[in-house]
Every structure is written in C-alpha cells, then in structure tokens.
C-alpha cells in the first residue's frame, strides 16, 4: 500500500515534516537509521514532558501521539539504499540495520521528504587514522547516546561553535577536556555572527557552553590547530601549534600534549546521497560544501521531492525544524491536500528560515576552512582511509596522470572507492587537488547505492 509521503530521516526536520503531514490527513512513513527518533541533536531522548507551539518538544510529543492516532508508519533501524522516481511518485528501497541488512523492502509514495542530516567534515593530517582520533559528532554520540567518554584526556579541535557543543556534552558527563583548539579567531565573529545571534535565539546556547567551559577552566585556544597525532597503535599525543590567518603553522610554536582522545571536526558535510540519486540540483553552500538546492517551500528541482534540514545546507537545529515544517506543508500540497498549518504560521516559518539561514551564513563566514591545512599533509598521510590511498598518490594522479576532477582521481587512485564511497575524503581530495569545487564536488557526489546491501537481497527482487 503506497504512502502519500515517505520521510527519510527522523531528526528534528523529519519529525516536524511528519507532524504537519499526518495532521493534514496524509499517510506518512518515516524512516530512520537509528534505534530512536531525534537525530544527532536530540538523540533518542524520551518523549518530552512539556513544550509549546512549534518547539521540538511540542513536535516530538505530537509525533509520538500521531504514531498511535494517525498511524504514522515509523520504521527505525531502517536504511534507504536507493531512491528512484516512478511515474509521478517514488520508489524507496530500504534495508534493516547491520544485524539485519538482508531485510529489504520496497516502498512507494507520492512525495518524499529527504531529511538525512549531515556528518562532520574531516581534513586529513598526519596521524589522523590512529584509534582515539574521532569526529566531534562521534564523540558527542558516544557520550549522549551511550553515556561513554571517548577517553581519559580529551582534546577537542577543529573549527566552529560545534566544538563548544561537543565540549559541553563531554564535560557535563564528567569528561576531562584538556583544551579546545579552534583554528579560527572567533573574535572576528563580533562583526558578523554576534549581531544576528539574538535574532536567531542562539545566544542562550552559546552562553551556556561558554559558562561551562569557564567553570571547568577548559582552555580555549584560538588560531591553533592540531598538526599531528602520534602514538603506537593508538593516540598518545597531539602536536598543536599556533597558525596564521590562512591556517599555516607558525614555526616554533609547536607543543605536544599527551591525550588519548581527539574529537575533531571542521564543519559538516550534508548527506545528499538520495537527492543525488534522483538527479536533484545541488548547490555549494556558504561553507563551501555541497547541499541540495531548494526553493522557498523546500522543494527540490525534482517534482514532489522536498528536502529539509542540514541536507539543504548546514544551518543548525532551529533552521532544520523550521525547514521541516515548510517541507511538510509542501509535501501535503503535493498530495492535493490542505496543510494543517495556518497561512500566517507558514509565512512566519518561511521568514524564520530566511533569518536562520542568514545566521548560518554569518557563522560560516566567521568559521571558514582556510587552505593552510594542506601544507601539513605530507606524502605518506592517507587521504582515503578506506582504500588507504596516500596524499602522494592523489597528487600524482593530477601531476602525472592527467586527472582533472574528483571522478578521474577516484578512477586512477581508488580514493573514494571504498566502504564510505568518498563521503569522508571527497572534500579533502578536491582541496588537495585544487579542483574547481562546484563541478568536481557535484560530479563526485553521485552514489547509486547509499548503503551497502547484500547481493542475495537484491537478487530476490528480480
């Protein structure tokens, strides 16, 4: 029985879209790869006690009620490996979690909302493959999802306000964060992002983080970067140094810190795989990363396909929630129904999206990724972790073998051909090869199989 709407991703954007769609009388299927809804930000928290208006808490309570009252088909531990168009609708192919990866299913729907979120952007550096080096999001997931600290002495590094969120989560759980290493100088933030913070309702969050750091006396080093991770078999120390405005290391400023965990991230990469499978138009976001292009109603270039949240460009949890609401409205209208959200609320939501998007742009402007990191990537440093392709091989594909874009580097070196299909290394390959990032990033982003699936399972479909 086809649904009116399939929503991929049960984070805040997907929840918001599902609530609007179900309230409007559409049949809704919501798929999420996790074992609970809430996404990376809310991480499976139990249904909140209170919450009003269109807050997450209120939406989450409404969602849980609608699962019962309106029969939202909520499928957890479910991955979408393929999205395809059929006639005027979509075919969504799913599989179970890694213990049940052969449990495949084929769903059909009139409209689809993609709300698949994002993951930390990594830049290669010597030693980054050592166990103990992990993404900021990974460290946060350990502590928020499993109540486990990543190590005894933790360094948080990279760039962006997310480092503060990670640190806050770690120290709140009793973690020993020995320093936060920020490559940019967020004093420059004063001129840009601070000015829009109150409007975006973000100042409370940041104040909470900063207060917590100060209370625990966690040093916050600006214009510093982790240059190297060292250890035998696992992380034992990091080398940090001051960096200039282009992120080039300043000689003589190196220091070595003993630590057993490094949580690192240089912004985020939007998860655009499913949109790419159906040929939705992409854009380069203000952070330089790939994003799904949407109009003011969250409609992509593909008819009946909506996108919301980080997949349309990195912008944070509040933007994701508002985009989810608007995407839900667009999906409802696509199904020929009247959205159960007042015109005034929709108009307000669209205004909020614009305001929050401006705030996100300002943050990206204040926390850019500068080129100096490339100087640290020596020949032996792996760029593609899956296929173990070194920087010298990647650079050689360009200098010796005529590679001119990400796809040809991949074909010639195998960088991006492994388990992760280049999701981790694609931005780094483009930057190291100095490709025109728009064309090359888009060209390299087509992934026909969004998550591995057993051959026996797809054979059964034939």
């Amino acid at each position: 029985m086809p649904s009116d709407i399939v929503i991929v991703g049960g984070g805040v954007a997907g929840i918001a879209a599902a609530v609007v769609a179900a309230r409007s009388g559409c049949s809704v299927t919501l798929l999420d790869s996790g074992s609970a809804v809430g996404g990376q930000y809310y991480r499976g928290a139990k249904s909140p006690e209170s919450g009003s208006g269109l807050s997450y808490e209120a939406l989450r309570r409404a969602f849980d009620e609608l699962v019962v009252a309106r029969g939202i088909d909520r499928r957890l531990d479910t991955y979408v490996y393929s999205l395809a168009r059929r006639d005027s609708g979509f075919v969504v192919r799913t599989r179970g979690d890694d213990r049940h990866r052969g449990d495949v299913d084929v769903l059909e729907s009139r409209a689809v909302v993609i709300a698949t979120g994002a993951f930390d952007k990594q830049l290669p550096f010597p030693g980054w493959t050592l166990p103990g080096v992990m993404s900021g999001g990974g460290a946060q997931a350990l502590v928020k999802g499993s109540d486990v600290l990543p190590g005894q002495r933790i360094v948080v590094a990279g760039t962006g306000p997310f480092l503060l969120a990670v640190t806050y989560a770690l120290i709140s759980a009793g973690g020993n964060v020995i320093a936060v290493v920020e490559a940019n100088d967020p004093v420059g933030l004063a001129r840009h992002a601070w000015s829009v913070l109150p409007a975006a309702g973000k100042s409370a969050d940041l104040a909470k983080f900063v207060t917590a750091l100060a209370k625990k006396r966690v040093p916050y080093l600006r214009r510093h970067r982790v240059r190297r991770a060292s250890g035998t078999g696992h992380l034992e120390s990091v080398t940090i140094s001051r960096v200039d405005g282009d992120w080039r290391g300043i000689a003589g400023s190196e220091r070595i810190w003993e630590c057993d965990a490094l949580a690192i991230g240089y912004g985020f990469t939007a998860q655009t795989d499913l949109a790419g499978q159906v040929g939705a138009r992409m854009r380069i976001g203000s952070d330089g990363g790939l994003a799904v292009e949407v109009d003011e109603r969250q409609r992509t270039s593909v008819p009946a396909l909506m996108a919301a949240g980080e997949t349309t460009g990195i912008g944070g949890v509040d933007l994701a929630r508002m985009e989810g609401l608007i995407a839900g409205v667009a999906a409802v209208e696509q199904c020929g129904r009247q959205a159960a959200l007042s015109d005034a609320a929709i108009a307000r939501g669209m205004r909020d999206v614009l305001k929050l998007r401006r705030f996100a742009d300002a943050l990206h402007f204040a926390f850019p990724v500068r080129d100096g990191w490339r100087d640290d990537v020596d020949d032996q440093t792996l760029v593609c972790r899956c296929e173990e392709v070194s920087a010298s091989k990647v650079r050689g594909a360009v200098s010796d073998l005529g590679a001119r874009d990400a796809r040809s580097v991949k074909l010639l070196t195998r960088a991006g051909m492994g388990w992760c299909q280049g999701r981790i290394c694609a931005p780094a390959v483009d930057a190291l090869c100095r490709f025109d990032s728009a064309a090359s990033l888009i060209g390299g982003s087509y992934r026909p199989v969004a998550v591995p699936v057993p051959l026996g399972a797809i054979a059964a479909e034939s």
Partner: protein
Amino acid sequence: MSREVVFRFDGAPYPGRDGQTIAAALIDHGILSWRRTRVDDQPRGILCGIGVCFDCLITVNGEPNVRACMTGVEDGDDLRSQEGTGYAQ
C-alpha cells in the same frame, strides 16, 4: 538504569549496558581498536561515529563488517576483531 549485558570480545567476557553501541561498550573498557586494515595492516577504531565512514567494522557473531558505532550491543554477543577484509582467506 539500563540493564547489564555480557558480551565477549576476542574470547574474553566484558560487561556492557543495554542501549550502548558496540563501539561505546568497547571504548568503555579502553578498547579503542578492533580492526586492522587490509593494505597497510594498521589499527582502526571509530572515526565518524555515526555510521558514515565504515572505519569501525567488526565481526559480530560470525558476521563480518558490522558497524560498531551503529549497532547496539546485545547480551551474549560474540565480538571479534577483524583483519583485512573481515573474511577468512
């Protein structure tokens, strides 16, 4: 308080908690790596921690290449570290 579970890692028993991921349960015991790569024979643990990078692959009850970061630990799990492709030569 979540229920205690017992799993094995490379033969030895360890306590864990229901609702934890396999990665978290191992890291909780100071085990940071459970895979060696097939080209350079290097140790790996978690990187992205949220299911994207596939660096944290582990063998669970004989099934190779399971993502430790996305899979909840279950009572009685037999976890084995992996070499290379995760399959016997």
